[in-house]
């Protein structure tokens, strides 16, 4: 029996990330108390708050629930915050629902995800929300690692060159990771062949391990937790999408500091390409992943309420007890991005996505949405 328990001991291996995220939070987080600090603090005593999320996965919901438990402690009156899933339409359903029903009273907040930002920016049909008018209260980053299976010719960053030849890159559907891979490998002289239709990360890993797929990508935390296992399956990291440092710059994630970022690798391949559209697109992708999840209050919410929320989620995210609990639950701390940084990344990203390159007909649109437009009738 003792042996069994030994096998199930808890692991807390992500302390460096916690530190880095905390550092990243400090600078921008300090901004939360400026501006409307003199306004009366809203009182939520006896109120019930609903926090919407477009995700239905238990860990995503649990992560938000845990965070909100700590955020509640920092809202006056310690209101009960209930996290509810409103899934569907790749995040558009939740965003539409939030825009249509939430009142600017601070009692309804929502997480919106990257697909919802993209749908909004490219003017997808069915979008009935305006992100530019919503109030950002925080963000959460997603760090991705691009990986190679045993059949890939490139087994690390040095293998990203013209001799790699055409390789398959597996994904469920097109997104910024796919765009990054296409731009990077094109620059290396070995364009990848994007294979869509995988049902999820698990099926991509299976295909990489069996050797029928060459390349893919994975959420960094999942990578770290399965490090030994993936090594056994001959799956190796090539480059990463990076994480934010304290100054808001994208850098190598401390947990995989030997793995270069996509833009580092790109500049190594093309040293003078900083001003090019490809480089800009690559940086946009990396920047948008730093706000893969945005947390919002409705448009028109009073500044005092917005400020109270920003302060509450910021304090909650930095609470050592929360960091410890989140780390215990998931093996890593929340990749928290303070509202000011999140807002900057979001605004910059949305502005870039409004450029013709990412609009229907542009190359960027084809890279992140689909290979080509629907045929003209």
């Amino acid at each position, binding site marked *: 029996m003792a042996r069994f328990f030994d096998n199930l001991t808890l692991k807390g291996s992500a302390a460096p990330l916690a530190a880095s995220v905390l550092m990243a939070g400090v600078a921008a987080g300090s901004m939360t108390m400026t501006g409307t600090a003199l306004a009366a603090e809203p009182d939520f005593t006896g109120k019930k708050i*609903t926090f919407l999320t477009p995700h239905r996965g238990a860990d995503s919901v649990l992560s938000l629930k845990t965070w909100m438990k700590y955020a509640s402690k920092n809202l006056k009156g310690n209101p009960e915050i209930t996290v*509810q899933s*409103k899934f569907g339409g790749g995040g558009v359903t939740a965003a539409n*629902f939030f825009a249509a*029903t939430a009142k600017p009273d601070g009692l309804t907040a929502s997480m919106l995800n990257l697909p919802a930002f993209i749908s909004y920016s490219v003017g997808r049909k069915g979008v009935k929300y305006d992100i530019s008018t919503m109030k950002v209260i925080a963000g959460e980053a997603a760090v991705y690692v691009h990986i190679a299976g045993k059949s890939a010719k490139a087994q690390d960053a040095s293998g990203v060159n013209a001799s790699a030849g055409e390789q398959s890159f597996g994904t469920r559907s097109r997104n910024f990771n796919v765009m990054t891979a296409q731009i990077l490998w094109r620059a290396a002289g070995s364009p990848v062949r994007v294979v869509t239709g995988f049902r999820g990360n698990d099926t991509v890993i299976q295909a990489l391990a069996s050797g029928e797929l060459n390349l893919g990508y994975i959420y960094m935390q999942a990578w770290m937790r399965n490090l030994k296992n993936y090594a056994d399956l001959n799956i190796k990291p090539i480059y990463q999408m990076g994480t934010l440092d304290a100054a808001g710059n994208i850098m190598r994630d401390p947990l995989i500091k030997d793995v270069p970022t996509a833009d580092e690798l790109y500049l190594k391949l093309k040293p003078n390409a900083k001003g090019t559209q490809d480089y800009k697109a690559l940086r946009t992708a990396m920047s948008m992943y730093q706000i893969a999840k945005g947390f919002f209050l409705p448009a028109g919410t009073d500044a005092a309420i917005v400020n109270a929320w920003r302060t509450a989620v910021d304090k909650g995210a930095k609470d050592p007890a929360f960091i410890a609990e989140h780390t215990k639950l998931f093996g890593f701390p929340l990749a928290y991005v303070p509202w000011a940084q999140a807002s900057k990344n979001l605004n910059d990203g949305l502005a870039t996505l409004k450029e013709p390159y990412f609009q229907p007909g542009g190359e960027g649109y084809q890279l992140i949405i689909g290979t*080509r437009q*629907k*045929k003209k*009738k």
Partner: protein
Amino acid sequence: MSGARIVDIALTVFFLAVGVFAITDVRDFPFQDQLFPFSAAGLILICVLIYGARQFITGPLEIEQETGANATKPPFTREQIHTVIPLAVAILVLVVGVFIFGHLIAVPAFAFGYILLRGEKLWIAIFGAVLLFAFIWGLLINVMEVLMPRPLIMDWLGL
């Protein structure tokens, strides 16, 4: 012509329309997105044509003998339709009620009304309604924190 046969023909026409729509609607997609829809719609159209032609050529009797269309005593006779329509209306009332008032109110209210109208005792109707209310409010909304769809009345009342 029997009621079942009319429904059968209506369904055949419905599937014909589905097949035609399915092909028309994916014309502008690339091959990869067309193959399965075309195959499925093609299968439907071919089978509908064969089935329809057989009905026309061999007549309804043989078809019904083969498929047993009338074997299950379908409720499409005049007398039987009279018993089905009120029930269908009841289901429609339930659904419309759910849209307007939400599950929490409409479902228990429907159970209460239905049981009472069917001549059961008042306590049974109350028991049924309470049971469903407890299921939706207690288990789904409170324990599982399920976000039930927002009823229209909340929009109408500006809530």
